[in-house]
């Protein structure tokens, strides 16, 4: 399924909670740091739009997009 997330790098505080929660493991932490000094997640190919990263993120970094089909958003 076509899906993606947008990640606001500057909001991230590097808590790492999103990394293990992603089922296809497509989030990896950056090598560079944001203005606060934290590393932040980068999205690789394979996102399924499951929203788990967005739901656990304490800093509201994620927005999730999925291909518009018959089904509604899950939240």
């Amino acid at each position, binding site marked *: 399924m*076509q*899906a*993606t997330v947008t990640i*606001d790098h500057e*909001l991230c*505080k*590097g*808590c*790492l*909670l999103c*990394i*293990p*929660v992603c089922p296809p493991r497509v989030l990896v932490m950056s090598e560079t740091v944001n203005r606060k000094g*934290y590393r932040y997640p980068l999205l690789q190919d394979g996102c399924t*739009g499951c*929203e*788990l990263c*967005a*739901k*656990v*993120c*304490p*800093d*509201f*970094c*994620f*927005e*999730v*997009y*999925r*291909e*518009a*089909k018959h089904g509604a*958003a*899950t*939240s």
Partner: protein
Amino acid sequence: MSGPLEKVFAPSDLLLRSEHSLCPGCGEPVALRTILELVSELDVRERTICVAGIGCYTAFPPIMDVDVMQALHGRAPSVATGVKRVRPDAVVFTMQGDGDMASEGLQEVLHAAARGENFTAIVFNNAVFGETGGHMTATTVLGQHTKTTVGGRDRERHGSPIKIAELIAQLDGAAYVARAAVHSAAAIHLAKQYLRDAFRAQLDGKGFSLVEILTMCPTDWFVRPEEGPAFLESRLVPIYPLGIVKAV
């Protein structure tokens, strides 16, 4: 064949700003977002009044697009009582921490529950005084290290923790009591369901409702942010089991 992408999830539009000053890995913003999502879902924003206690979450009122009455440490239940009594059509919830509710304010929440005051008390329980930098509250668990229980809370010296949900459930005026957590997506989903139940109990005029939400506090648990969920699961959940404790 791929079609256009639609946005299926964004942080609640009742969050006026995403940026906040709480710690990496803190569970309270997750709980806040869940509450605000529910307020939107129930379409009650225009009659929602939050009565906030004092803790790290005191940083939230400036970014919540609902009316907020800030109370003193421990005192949100009496303030919420006054609010709900004069505005019975408002959807009133308190936002408190475990130190606020179970230490300073235990008397207040017990009396409000006994009276069956028709508001929803929400407590973010991270078993520690977060805002002051990591001190024992009434819900700190045995063996938990804090700056006032160095080496771990000891039954002989520091007594035993108070289980808020079970205590409140004993009171006849309490109509719905549940305990949730935000350390996993599944737990967050269940937290929202329990909050929905609690707000429904209020909307149906059934009496006092309380949702205790276990939240991560890696800073004052002295663990790394990514270890917060495991700490919550292994150290708090055995003492504070998740689930619906009472539903009238």
